[in-house]
């Protein structure tokens, strides 16, 4: 078991109150899983991802990576964010990747450059290596962010709705490319989304969260397609029912 969340309760503070984002959330992720956390907005799924990354400390429960408690951010858990401004604007595409590798003193420059080129090739952006981020399209920026995160070769790749701000065509394409990258590298992915369709396509395991506060509803397996079960109900319909049955009851 690579990553474990045990009874994680997360809170955040606004100016005048403390809000509980998730209550008693537990799950475990195995090596090479494509683990999707799916839930409506307000279920605290991004906060869970940020606590796995080490940006948010749980008020109760623990997060374990290889059995060790996560206490702060580190290069073994790299986040790909939704926002396009996650690349350093003052560095070119290739510099963004090499800097991520050399910054913590983890790789010598020559090795970093070779690895950066390798991953840039994987996301088919070699031609833009020397461009500055502001000249790239949204989809290209996300590709660079993914290449950068994968080049750091983390234990687990954390993705916080990375395709949500893209247009529909680009989003579908990026999902396919991500699956291809996973096939090549078998990297462990923890993926957060509010799209049922995206969860089915990306994940092999899907954790369903309800909102206000986020609690675990169920865990579901996906084969990557929206199959019908023996009763003829589509997977997406079953997920939808599980997520929203309380609201309809």
């Amino acid at each position, binding site marked *: 078991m690579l990553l474990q969340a045990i009874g994680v309760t997360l809170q955040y503070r606004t100016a005048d109150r403390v809000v509980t984002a998730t209550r008693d959330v537990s799950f475990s992720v195995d090596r090479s899983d494509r683990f999707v956390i799916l839930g409506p907005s307000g279920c605290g799924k991004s906060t869970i991802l940020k606590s796995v990354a080490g940006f948010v400390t749980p008020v109760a429960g623990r997060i374990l990576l290889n059995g060790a408690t996560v206490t702060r*951010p*580190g*290069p073994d858990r*790299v*986040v790909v964010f939704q*926002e396009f401004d996650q690349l*350093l604007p*003052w560095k070119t595409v290739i510099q963004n990747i090499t800097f991520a590798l050399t*910054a913590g003193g983890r790789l010598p420059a020559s090795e970093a450059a070779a690895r950066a080129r390798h991953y840039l090739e994987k996301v088919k952006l070699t031609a833009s290596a020397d461009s500055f981020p502001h000249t790239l399209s949204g989809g290209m920026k996300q590709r660079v962010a993914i290449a950068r995160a994968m080049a750091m070769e983390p234990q687990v790749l954390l993705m916080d709705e990375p395709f949500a701000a893209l247009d529909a065509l680009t989003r579908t394409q990026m999902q396919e490319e991500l699956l291809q990258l996973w096939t090549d590298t078998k990297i462990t992915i923890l993926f957060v989304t509010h799209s049922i369709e995206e969860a089915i396509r990306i994940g092999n395991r899907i954790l369903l969260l309800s909102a206000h506060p986020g609690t675990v509803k169920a865990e579901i397996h996906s084969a990557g397609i929206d199959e019908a079960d023996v009763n003829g109900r589509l997977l997406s319909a079953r997920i939808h029912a599980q997520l929203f049955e309380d609201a309809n009851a």
Partner: protein
Amino acid sequence: MPERLEQPLPTWRRLYENGTVRKTVLLLVLALMWEGYARVLDNPLLFPTLTATVSALLASTRSGELPRAIAYTLTLLLEGYVLGLVCAALLTALASVSKIGADLLEMLTSMFNPLPSIALLPLALIWFGLGNGSVIFVLVHAVLWSVALNTYAGFRALSPTLRMVGQNYGLSSVGFITKILIPGAFPGILTGLKVGWAFAWRTLIAAELVFGVSSGSGGIGWFIFEHKNQLLIPEVFAGLLTVILFGLFVEHVIFRTIEERTVRRWGMQV
């Protein structure tokens, strides 16, 4: 005959669209008006001609008087500017680590920014005496507030995403500040440097007009003042022209170059 999809504009139209050409023509017209008016007026004590001003400029450059004054002014300017930057860095650091520090910066800035530095000169003369110390004091006041405020605003404007990306890299805190925070806040820092420079330059020339001389040498402001006392008005005009030219040089060559190599290239304009 095939339809022509594009056709060149007439020559005069293309010249008119070129900003440099337009401004050069304007400058020539203004220079001609200056020369013409001065010749008609024919009173070099009130309004010398452009040619007299230029020859005064050349003469005092050749005699070494003007270069000495420029060097004097620049030395003072740099001392005051750098000291102001150091103070601004300290104040910004304080503001970045605590809410009280941030409130202090905000309060001090809103109190002292509307106060023209030159208004502090009489007080500075009492505190620091007739010397460079007083000038440097007003210079620091001119630079400090705008640089501190803009730098702090630059830090605040850095997106939370970029901060998290930086933390993800496993950088030390010094590395995080120098490699993420400072480049990320650079648009704000540069704005502060520009505004600070503009205040400092104007303040310094004004201060030198009041008193700018110590141990027999003075700056450009003093150069202007002294020649007015001797009724050498073309030299006064030459001094003013120097102030303008140097200001243009710093704003349009130095800062423009920095901007083009950094924030424009990075697409980070504010």
